[in-house]
């Protein structure tokens, strides 16, 4: 750690990991509800478990991104943070607001939560991933603005690198596109059209800038390859991300009442969306081959290499699988979508946050460069358990999805939804087992922080 104020990122990383555990626990609950329908009913209905699962994911990734920014920006800008105090205050506001929202989901019926938080005054609730009460959304905007102010001021007073510029652009984009969550017209088609400006332009748009910046930072630090080379790659990759991803939004506009020309725009551009992810794989492996140092933090290297590979598989391959309009006609809104969503989020965003945590945490905890060998071995076990089980979760959901499409949509005598669900339940059972293995991997991950032993010297 080169700057004192970087220490604040430790708070953010710890909160991120804590919320990650909550996300996975609710994932396990939902997985069981898929096969034991009355599990925890009516105390925690599926829709409540799901909003806890998805909202915790989003919030912990945001904590991860903010922690990453607070760690990276001082080092890149070569100056202390503009305000460490602001970073701490915003941390507690965000954590308490987030916790209260989750408690709200679980403690009272959703309609009651809508009522007591004044949803009628400005209705924004009850839309997928944007379930947060309107006042929580306003809180998120305030925290985001404070955070962006702090980070931007730090960059302004220090060195400006490609990595900080890309990171800042991604974070500002994140905040700007979130504003569309306040637009909720009575017209469902319009509502859906602009809902995607938050959801798609986040995960297949500006978040990819954040992903690229974090990955580039970690690779510079770990491989010692010349910054010029890495930053050139970064620009090329994110150029491809946005060139394909912006019009690629069209793959959500096939069947929601929007004009049919979107079937062409969406199919063509989103078919190109795997390209930046493939370039990311080439980039990471090339940089490692050209490395000028042997960094002792092998666990962080594993996460940094795993990120592009899994992102390419989850976002690239599994995305392409159902993105062409004639295919999507049959797969839209099935378990195929769920399969893609799981591996894409894990590969692209979960893993990159775990990569920066893995790189930064030993430094934040006062180690020279890395944790002890013993600790790293436990962390690498957690990498493999979580990654392999996520591959299996994705494969089982894909199996379920193919059968669902066949039985419900393509066969001569299409069967009703619930009949099909019963027929494919064996896949849901296997998915649940894989989910439990994922949880074991996550527990090992947390244990790795408490494994002592002699720390590695700086290479």
């Amino acid at each position, binding site marked *: 750690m080169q700057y004192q104020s970087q220490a604040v990122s430790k708070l953010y990383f710890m909160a991120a990991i804590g919320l990650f555990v909550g996300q996975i626990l609710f994932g396990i609950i939902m997985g069981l*509800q898929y096969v*034991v*329908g*009355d599990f925890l*009913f*009516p105390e925690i*209905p*599926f*829709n*409540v478990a*799901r909003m806890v699962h998805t909202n915790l994911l989003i919030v912990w990734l945001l904590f991860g991104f903010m922690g990453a920014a607070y760690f990276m920006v001082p080092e890149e800008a070569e100056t202390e943070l503009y305000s460490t105090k602001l970073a701490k205050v915003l941390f507690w506001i965000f954590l308490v607001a987030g916790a209260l929202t989750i408690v709200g989901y679980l403690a009272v019926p*959703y*309609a009651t939560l809508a009522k007591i938080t004044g*949803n*009628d005054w400005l*209705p924004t*609730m*009850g*839309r*997928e991933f944007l*379930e947060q009460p309107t006042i929580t959304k306003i809180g998120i905007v305030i925290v985001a603005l404070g955070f962006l102010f702090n980070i931007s001021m730090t960059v302004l007073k220090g060195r400006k690198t*490609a990595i900080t510029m890309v990171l800042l652009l991604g974070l500002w984009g994140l905040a700007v596109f979130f504003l569309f969550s306040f637009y*909720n017209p009575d017209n*469902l*088609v*319009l509502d*859906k*059209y602009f809902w995607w400006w938050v959801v798609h332009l986040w995960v297949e748009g500006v978040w990819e800038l954040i992903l690229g910046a974090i990955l580039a930072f970690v690779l510079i630090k770990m491989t010692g390859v010349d910054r010029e080379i890495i930053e*050139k*790659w970064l*620009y*090329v990759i*994110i*150029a491809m991300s*946005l*060139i394909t991803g*912006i*019009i690629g*939004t069209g793959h959500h506009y*096939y*069947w*929601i*009442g*929007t*004009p049919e020309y979107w*079937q062409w*725009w969406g199919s063509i551009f989103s078919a190109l969306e795997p390209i930046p992810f493939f370039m990311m794989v080439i980039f990471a492996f090339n940089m490692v081959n050209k490395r000028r140092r042997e960094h002792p933090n092998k666990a962080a290297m594993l996460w940094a290499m795993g990120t592009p590979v899994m992102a390419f598989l989850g976002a690239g391959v599994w995305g392409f699988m159902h993105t062409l309009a004639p295919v999507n*006609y*049959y797969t*839209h*809104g*099935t378990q195929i*979508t769920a399969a893609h969503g799981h591996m894409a989020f894990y590969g692209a965003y979960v893993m990159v946050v775990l990569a920066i945590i893995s790189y930064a945490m030993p430094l934040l905890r006062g180690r020279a460069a890395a944790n002890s060998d013993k600790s790293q071995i436990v962390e690498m076990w957690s990498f493999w358990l979580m990654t392999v089980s996520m591959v299996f979760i994705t494969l089982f959901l894909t199996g379920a999805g193919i059968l669902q499409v066949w039985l*419900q*949509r*393509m066969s001569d005598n*299409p069967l*009703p*939804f*619930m009949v099909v669900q019963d027929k494919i339940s064996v896949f849901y059972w296997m998915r649940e087992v894989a989910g439990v293995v994922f949880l074991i991997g996550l527990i090992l991950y947390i244990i790795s922080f408490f494994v002592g032993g002699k720390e590695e010297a700086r290479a």
Partner: protein
Amino acid sequence: MSGKFTKSMARNTFYGGTVFFLLFFIALTFDTTAGLPKRDHRVNITEKVAFGKLVWEKNDCIGCHTLLGEGAYFAPELGNVYKRFGNNKQAIIAFIKSRPVNGIKGRRSMPQFNLSDKELDALAEFLKWSSEVNTANWPPNIQG
């Protein structure tokens, strides 16, 4: 990458490409919203349909169901439920009303939301309106 392609060229590709495609996306958006009234039959969005959408949102129906294919995959698609239920609003209302409070043993069950008659009627009206949006012939069949 070859030495000819410099970092500033890469940066310009990024900024140029992003701005170009963002503007193109906005242009397509203007075209879409201009042509939308014909497809979304917004003339039929009455006060009741709008209130029905609010009821839909306040009970987080999207947390289990899909609507025009978007949402959760735990319960049936509802974009065409009006047609699946024989173009019958009363059948939809009766279904929602009759959900057992403690669920069905061992099976997925829809919660009992205790909606008022006014809410039920509006929700059914909203689902009827949704089923009449021009969705390019999606879903493939009546099972959703």
